[in-house]
């Protein structure tokens, strides 16, 4: 009986300081968290600025690339880009199956009678 009473006294003795400590801890945690959040916001803001700069640079380069790749700019004899004369282009029909590993000019097959001559 006395033991239980002692326990109760200890609990009530510790209860208040515990609550105060918890409260203080909570307050400091909140402040610490808020501070971290604000720090993160600063960092994010800096990153956003950096991102904007990178996007700006990227757009510049894309515009430059588009200009350099302009067909009109490329298509000059000085640059060596000339549309081929269609008369000189030979189109080869794609054959099914694997192609022979050789380069050759095969003439039209001679008929047997021509061969016999």
């Amino acid at each position: 009986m006395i033991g239980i009473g002692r326990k109760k006294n200890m609990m009530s003795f510790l209860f208040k300081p515990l609550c105060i400590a918890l409260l203080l801890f909570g307050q400091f945690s909140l402040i610490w968290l808020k501070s971290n959040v604000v720090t993160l916001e600063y960092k994010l803001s800096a990153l956003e600025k950096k991102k904007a700069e990178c996007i700006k640079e990227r757009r510049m380069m894309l515009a430059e690339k588009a200009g350099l790749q302009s067909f009109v700019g490329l298509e000059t004899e000085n640059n060596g880009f000339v549309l081929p004369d269609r008369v000189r282009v030979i189109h080869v029909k794609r054959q099914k199956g694997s192609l022979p590993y050789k380069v050759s000019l095969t003439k039209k097959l001679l008929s047997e009678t021509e061969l016999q001559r």
Partner: protein
Amino acid sequence: MILNHGMLSEKAKQQHVKAEDIQVKRGIILDREGRQLALNLDLESLYCEPEILHLDNKSVKKLASAMGEKPEVILTKIPAEGKFAWVERKLEPRIAERIRGQNIKGLGFMNEAKRVYPKGKLASHILGFVGLDNQALEGLELQYDRYLSTRGGKVFFERDASGRTLSSGVDKEVRGNNIVLTIDEGLQGIVEKEIEKAIAKWKAVAASAIMMDPFTGEILALANWPSYDPNNPRKASNFEKRNRAITDCYEPGSTFKIVVGIGALEENIVRPDTLFDVSKGGIEVGTKTIHDVHRYGTLTFKEVIQKSSNVGSIMIGMRLGKERIYKYAKLLGIGEKTGIDLPGEVSGWIHPPERWSGTSLGAIPIGQEVAVTPLQILRAYSAIANGGFLIKPHIVSEVTSPEGQLIYSFADNELKHIIPAKTAEIFKEILKSVVEGGTGENASIEGDEVAGKTGTAQRIDPKTKRYSKEKYISSFVGFVPADKPMFSLIVVIYEPKGQIYGGVVAAPVFRDIVNQALSYLNIPRKNIPYETTLLVAR
């Protein structure tokens, strides 16, 4: 308990909450292969705060030198009083850097988006341009502004006592939708290059050319000369900015003979071998006599078109009658807008039969007293190429969101079947003969058959209000390969000097464009020799 909480918190808010406009970036315009034709750059604009700014002579000279302008010009841009004034909008980065390096108090920079056309003059009449505040003013920029642009707004973010900003988590930029065109940059470049050459050769006043897929109505290239750089539209005159391919009418001359030709075939008035005696070399209609360029004897209907006999065409027109000529003209889209998705298209005109004069029957069948645009004529001939369908030309293929989602796609062309395929086929053979042995020989190419028609029309002299004897419009319209057309093409040269005939001035331009275009598209020739085959190693 805080006194004056409301007022104080409002004041605090004013101090540490800043509002900024959300940047609106217009959507990108791409050609059919995804190549960028219009995009945005982030540039800086220079502003001043006159109340704070104090420029001495030395600073003014430094600033002027950095901006590449005279000191007097700089001073006119800076007002004596006020809180804010623009000095220069959308500076080049190197100029902005030079000015920033001078650290002049009272000057500041603001980010702004600038619309840029990286291909320069290419497709300028199609793309159009925007104003200083990126407001659409011409061309596709105007026509599709509701897709390309979007609403901005404001973003609010906090800043501390030293002015550093905290992240708001909101994107400070919104982008409009992107547009994919039917235009091919390569074909556009070829067409523009060739008409520019023709202008130089014939010292012409202007030129237009349009290339189109006759089956789908997709415009593959649309070019005008003179042209302009949409990056500097203020430097261009209105004459240079005219999209005469759709905004200017002209009398089509002999290219209009498709109307009487198709009408006569459809009404069974003629067959390809029906004979016409044009030996007199001229024909009287009312008080006028209309002559042929050359004297012919008896021509078949086919030869009347092949040799572009005015006398023969008028005879056919007389047999057809004015009501039926008008009917077939309207059927082929003459005097009506094509509905192309570009601003400023005009309808042209053809008077209804009740308004025809006593000499109209001698004029309209040969393409006078009629006003058309180059696109209308191209569409009419495309109906022959595709088996008798009147298609709707269009320039935009689809609209996509910045994330790539499809928002709008050009629906399948509502095809209007205007003439039977058989009639179209007969007339196609006749158009082939124009190039094979007729007035359009200079349009022929090796390896493929071309079908087309020449046109030579007098211009009205604005001073005398009569047909000019010096000012002509030379044109050629056709499609290739004749039997399986990859594209139809019209070339119109305004007021060439030295020569006037469509077969001499416009037909060679047509040929040169076609040769390069077919090569660019890698279309094999019809008569590919298979006697030898070249096998290549993998």
